[in-house]
């Protein structure tokens, strides 16, 4: 902080500190706190209180319906007691209310005989009073039941412990898949990053990097969708195989590429390679060329040069690349969603997504998200241990 003040002056330093604090609170601390709280809060969604509340709602609705009927009868009277054999077309709610409130005892205006409007109002008023009188008791009952449930809910680990075996399986498989994606990406990216970093002349390296970056100018969804076009049953890949005579499309012979783990891996690697290539490239870039030459001069094989000189130097970059790729693939929804539809088991991130946006069960969703976060953190720590790199080196 003192350093910041020295470097930028008091005013700017205060602005920096303030913005950082706002960011930390709004974007990190609050959502995390909220998510953690939700994850550890059991929400009983269809207990007795919820059923009672439904009944309460229904009673309230009934009162509203009666109010409509009363208003309709009053209009009739005002029009000069014209006999109303059929429901007035100006009253669009008449038919609706009849359908919407099956619990109503009274005949609706449409279905009734020739009851005079005055009598009808009388009857409706009595009914309304009765219904209104019942409400406080019902509300009290809801409160009572809720209190009972709340006593059971509150802080709880039930959101975690009640996960179904299927979801546990998905959880475990997601971890394995993400490790696999990270490994594949590393194996593919290391040679690329090395080649680019060692390319002679700045122009060539620039071009190569540009080539790597250009595909990323396209929206992620489109990029993935392009793959589904390639991999579809009548897609480009099968078309090419057909043209080569490997398969016979006309004869209904197709290879099902989509919805296979292999293609999910391939597309995911493609989607996130840049996050692997760049950190490794940056790390190798800073390796003095003469060190590689010295190792070669001393008779080291290509393999030994990499194992003893290049990889130890690039370790922090490799660690960062692995961490980023792992986190991105663990959190990816679009790739398994578009490339692997109907593939079971799913990716764990999809389960989280469904909890939030389809089942609207935010508490369970938060619990699942927290699990994924813990898994990712464990992976990060594991990678940092394995590579023997600390936070400081990674920051470098």
């Amino acid at each position, binding site marked *: 902080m003192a350093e910041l003040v020295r470097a930028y002056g008091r005013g700017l330093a205060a602005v920096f500190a303030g913005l950082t604090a706002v960011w930390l609170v709004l974007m990190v601390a609050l959502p995390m706190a909220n998510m953690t709280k939700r994850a550890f809060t059991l929400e009983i969604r269809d207990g007795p209180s919820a059923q009672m509340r439904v009944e309460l709602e229904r009673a309230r609705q009934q009162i509203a319906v009666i109010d409509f009927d009363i208003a309709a009868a009053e209009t009739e009277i005002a029009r000069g007691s014209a006999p109303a054999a059929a429901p007035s077309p100006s009253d669009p709610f008449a038919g609706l209310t009849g359908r919407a409130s099956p619990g109503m005892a009274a005949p609706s205006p449409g279905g009734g005989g020739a009851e005079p409007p005055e009598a009808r109002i009388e009857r409706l008023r009595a009914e309304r009073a009765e219904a209104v009188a019942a409400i406080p008791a019902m509300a009290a009952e809801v409160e009572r039941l809720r209190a009972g449930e709340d006593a059971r809910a509150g802080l709880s680990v039930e959101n975690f412990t009640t996960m179904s075996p299927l979801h546990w399986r998905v959880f475990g498989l997601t971890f394995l898949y993400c490790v696999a994606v990270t490994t594949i990406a590393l194996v593919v990216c290391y040679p690329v990053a090395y080649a680019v970093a060692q390319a002679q002349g700045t122009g060539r390296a620039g071009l190569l990097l540009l080539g790597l970056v250009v595909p990323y100018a396209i929206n992620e969804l489109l990029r993935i969708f392009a793959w589904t076009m390639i991999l579809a049953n009548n897609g480009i890949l099968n078309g090419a195989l057909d043209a080569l005579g490997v398969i016979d499309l006309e004869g209904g012979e197709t290879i099902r590429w989509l919805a296979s783990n292999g293609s999910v891996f391939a597309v995911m690697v493609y989607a996130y390679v840049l996050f692997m290539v760049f950190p490794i490239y940056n790390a190798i870039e800073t390796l003095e060329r*003469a*060190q590689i*030459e*010295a*190792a070669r*001069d*001393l*008779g*080291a094989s290509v393999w030994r040069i990499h194992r*003893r000189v290049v990889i130890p130097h690039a370790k922090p970059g490799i660690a960062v690349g692995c961490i980023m790729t792992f986190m991105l693939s663990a959190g990816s929804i679009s790739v398994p969603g578009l490339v692997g539809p109907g593939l079971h088991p799913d990716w764990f991130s999809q389960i989280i997504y469904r909890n939030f946006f389809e089942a609207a069960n935010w508490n369970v969703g938060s619990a699942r998200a927290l699990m994924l976060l813990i898994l990712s953190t464990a992976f990060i720590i594991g990678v940092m241990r394995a590579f023997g790199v600390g936070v400081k080196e990674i920051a470098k």
Partner: protein
Amino acid sequence: MLDQARMQGREVALDGLSMRFGDFTAVHPTDLTIRAGEFFSILGPSGCGKTTVLRAISGFAAPSAGRVLIGGDDVTALGPNRRPTALIFQSLALFPLMTVWENVAFGLEARGMARAERRRRADALLELVALEGQGDKRPAQLSGGQRQRVAVARALAVEPAVLLLDEPLSALDLKLRQHMRAELKAIQRRTGVTFVYITHDQGEALTMSDRIAVMNAGRIEQVDAANVIYDRPETPFVATFVGEQNVFEGRVESVAEGFAAVATPQGRFRAIDRAGLAPGEAAAVMVRPERTAPAANAPSDANRFTARVERIDMEGPYLIAHLRAGDAAAALHVPNLAGAAAGLTGAVEAAFRPEDAAAFRPGGRARG
């Protein structure tokens, strides 16, 4: 102690070697023989192609034409790891993440030697370069001179027949550089390995080398022992790049018995004809400041000129008097004896012997 019997220097021969980068010729066709076991320096200004020659010998750069022979074997087609050479880089290129002994033993590791044996050899080599007990440090924990010696030990570990050194001392301060010169020379003597030493520092080349090649703009201009390079330079570039020269430009009057008489604005000077000059040609007479002296005791056939003393610099053992004679600047060295400076004021008469002076065609001189 190190098994020194195993190390043996070998001869390096360049046969019509030339190196081009696109349209640019970094090294013009060169023939050169470096004798087995000699301390050979390649001296030249920055960018003259020294490193390029070294990279051709080590195998990192393929020659555009010509051959490289080591110990009589044609190695032109071999990679750096298959040549009996070891290169010490301009930047040393130690491996920062390995310990000192692992650095030294890296070449042995690459040959698949067992760890205990590697360690033993590394320790012996570290002893050779006076770094006993430093094996477990990291290179970054050593001083510049110590790192230098680690690089030497690492290169010697693979028992090369030829050690190639690319300005290895340029990063060190003056005192350390002088110390390391002596040390490198001693290591070279002890091991008998052929050293090919690149430098742009003439002092370094002159003190350490058995022979020196002076290189300029991709060409080797002269290959000789240090005293010959200094006393009998064959080209104006060699004459002016190595040491200082007083230069007087004029026109040749006559040539006789290997001496040219050149008429200059400063006077008519006789000098050894090193360029096969003809009467009427433009020429430059060069003589070293330490061979130029006040005329008082000069022999009768000496070349004489009068000049004005502009400044006197104290160099410790001797004084440098900076003179101006018409257009030409000159300098002379006088031993720093009692009262030596007294006579060096105003106009003085200076003299040099014809045998100490050389006449060349003008041009082709080193800058500065």
